């Protein structure tokens, strides 16, 4: 990626090609060195002895993929779009031929490098991606030549949002929506909500928080403890959990928000771990590592989703006179988290246009300048921390209600990292970007659970691809919160 700036200059194509070939070969060499030891040999224990199998086929394919992929990306960057597209089409066609052929004729399978057919098929992503990227660049160059400026992406981000909301509303009623799909969608929405919540802290206020999961935990334990100890219902506990999480946000934030940048990140990381360790060790209160069982499920305006609810409680299916089905609860939970997530989104969109939201963004841009304008940095940061924590608290109590069981296991540092990855890869501050990133990082890997170990690989691959193609995040565009001249007047 180093050459991004230079290659576009008017260097003769042959010179570009020679240096590109050299760099592609270098990249392939690095790929070879990296994979030969780890992928090339597989240790197998057979009847007590340790043997190794070789997997050189996989390496050859990987190295070739790196070489040609690098070449194609380099060509695209150098503006040689058509050679890259033609090359990708040829490679893709050969690959497709083998893949399709191997379905009918198993003897072709030895040309396929990997052990899982899904992984083999996913190889197709690369040529397809390069072709799409090439066409996109080509289209952009044309529209730029025509109008003299890049067409704004903001125009369709508006209706993209409505289309996504519409799709989310009808999803559970689609014929293909089985229980598994709705469950995955619910999980993805939980992460979208967490992403939107963390986005207030990281994306808007620019405070790197590595311990966000702590507030998620506070929300989950608040609901679980209040409902198991005092029998409070979900709807009463939801605001309480949010308020408790926000209080924790302020308590934790107060001492640490004087720190800047890396120091803040490390201290928040520490706090995240502290909360988890307290949860493990405060045995009589939190149940320790065993967690809390039998957390009450949320009701629909007092209607339960059990087949045979307790005495005096009406059941959803009898009230509406329909057949009982376990799907009803699943779909209800889906809509519940969808509503919570949309509230989070609406809050963020609104507060961005309020003085507080603008001050958050200003603080992210330049804290010193904020001071010089009389903005209280500590209070402003604290409110961002508190609001972010509050939404994590809501999501946490939803999580406890959905699972019916929680334990400290669910609130490890990895969760914070995943949520942060969603926010960063989505394009800091971009609401729709977070949706896309959550789908890519949570939904898709969850859907391909049968890939087992390859799942983490897919997670990593998704991250790398986003970083390569969209270094500023999927949607790094920022809309101003107010306009003097209105939308009609084009930007000069």
């Amino acid at each position, binding site marked *: 990626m180093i050459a991004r700036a230079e290659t576009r200059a008017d260097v003769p194509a042959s010179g570009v090609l020679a240096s590109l070939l050299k760099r592609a070969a270098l990249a392939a060499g690095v790929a070879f060195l990296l994979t030969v030891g780890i992928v090339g040999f597989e240790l197998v224990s057979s009847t007590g002895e340790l043997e190794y199998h070789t997997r050189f086929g996989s390496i050859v394919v990987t190295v070739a993929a790196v070489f040609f992929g690098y070449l194609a990306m380099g060509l695209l960057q150098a503006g040689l779009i058509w050679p890259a597209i033609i090359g990708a089409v040829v490679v893709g066609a050969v690959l497709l031929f083998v893949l399709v052929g191997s379905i009918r004729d198993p003897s072709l399978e030895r040309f396929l490098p990997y052990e899982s057919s899904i992984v083999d098929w996913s190889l197709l992503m690369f040529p397809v991606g390069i072709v799409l990227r090439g066409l996109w660049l080509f289209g952009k160059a044309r529209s730029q030549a025509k109008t003299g400026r890049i067409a704004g992406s903001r125009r369709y981000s508006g209706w993209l949002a409505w289309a996504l909301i519409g799709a989310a509303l009808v999803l559970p009623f689609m014929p293909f929506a089985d229980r598994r799909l709705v469950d995955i969608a619910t999980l993805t929405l939980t992460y979208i909500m967490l992403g939107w919540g963390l986005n207030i802290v990281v994306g808007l206020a620019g405070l790197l928080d590595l311990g966000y999961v702590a507030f998620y935990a506070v929300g989950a334990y608040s609901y679980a403890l209040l409902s198991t100890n005092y029998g409070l219902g979900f709807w009463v506990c939801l605001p309480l959990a949010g308020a408790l999480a926000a209080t924790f946000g302020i308590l934790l934030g107060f001492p640490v928000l004087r720190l800047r940048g890396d120091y803040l990140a490390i201290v928040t990381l520490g706090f995240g771990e502290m909360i988890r360790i307290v949860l493990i060790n405060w045995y009589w209160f939190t149940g320790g590592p065993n967690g809390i069982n039998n957390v009450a499920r949320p009701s629909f305006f007092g209607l339960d989703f059990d087949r045979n609810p307790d005495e005096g409680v009406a059941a959803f299916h009898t009230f509406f006179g329909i057949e009982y089905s376990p799907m009803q609860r699943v779909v209800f939970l889906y809509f519940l988290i969808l509503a919570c997530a949309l509230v989070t989104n609406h809050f963020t969109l609104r507060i961005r246009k309020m003085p507080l939201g603008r001050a958050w963004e200003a603080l992210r841009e330049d804290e010193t*300048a904020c001071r010089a*304008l009389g903005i209280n940095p500590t209070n402003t940061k604290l409110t961002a921390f508190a609001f972010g924590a509050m939404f994590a608290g809501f999501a946490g109590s939803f999580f406890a209600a959905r699972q019916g069981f929680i334990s400290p296991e669910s609130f490890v540092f990895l969760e914070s990292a995943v949520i942060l990855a969603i926010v960063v890869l989505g394009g800091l501050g971009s609401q729709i970007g977070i949706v896309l990133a959550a789908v890519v990082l949570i939904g898709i890997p969850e859907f391909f659970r049968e890939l087992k170990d390859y799942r983490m690989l897919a997670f990593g691959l998704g991250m790398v691809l986003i970083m390569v193609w969209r270094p500023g995040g999927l949607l790094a565009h920022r809309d101003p919160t107010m306009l003097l001249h209105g939308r009609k007047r084009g930007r000069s």
Partner: protein
Amino acid sequence: MPDAPLLTVEHLSMRFGGLVAVDDVSFAAADRAITAIIGPNGAGKTTVFNCLTGFYKPSIGCMRLDGARGSFLLERLDGFRVAQKAGVARTFQNIRLFAGMSVLENLVVAQHNRLMKASGYTVLGLFGLGTYRAEEQAAVERARYWLDRTGLTNAADDQAASLPYGAQRRLEIARAMCTEPVLLCLDEPAAGLNARESAELNELLLKIRDDEKIGILLIEHDMSVVMEISDYIVVLDYGRKIAEGVPSEIRRDANVIKAYLGEAEDEGPAARAGEARP
């Protein structure tokens, strides 16, 4: 000096470890006047500003502001309160804008405290209650006023970082003015401007002085700016005040000429005055 002093600085000293950046400096700045602080590089001018605006706590000294918002001892206010309560606004030697935000947003953020109050500290505003709408409209109008005065109206919806250098300098001044200060502190506003922009800046500063009726403290190296628009000049060298007076006096002052031209000194201020400025 027409009025009683707006700002009185007495025996101000600022030490960084062994280094005395500002050494027992006293001066006064009048209301509705432009007071320039000049001196060779490293003389301690920016440090004086940092003390005045709450970024540094001075080691010794007293800074008194008697403005429209009341009397304040600036060294007793911490950090942001100097701008919030006392009404001292400043710009920075190396421009500090909210680069990713639009020009208009930069100016509206500057009116944060007033808008926060109007939005009921966000609570009322979130639900569309209170006087927030009207107050926001007023904030936009105030921003528009300063955009017009600084010639940035057409760029209002552009990203601040995308402005040319001279426009960024003007935007920073407009942003400081949107806080409605009683004292405006400008740290080298003409640095990096060409002759025409520099002349426009002179005009803008004179207008601010006359129309807004506030005091201006000006750090500047560009002598054409300083001599033309200042009402009073304070000269620092090595952290000490070496002269003060009206421009015609300063022009003839032997100490000032020595500090700038470095008479009979090899490694003295001349070497530093000749250095390229950041």
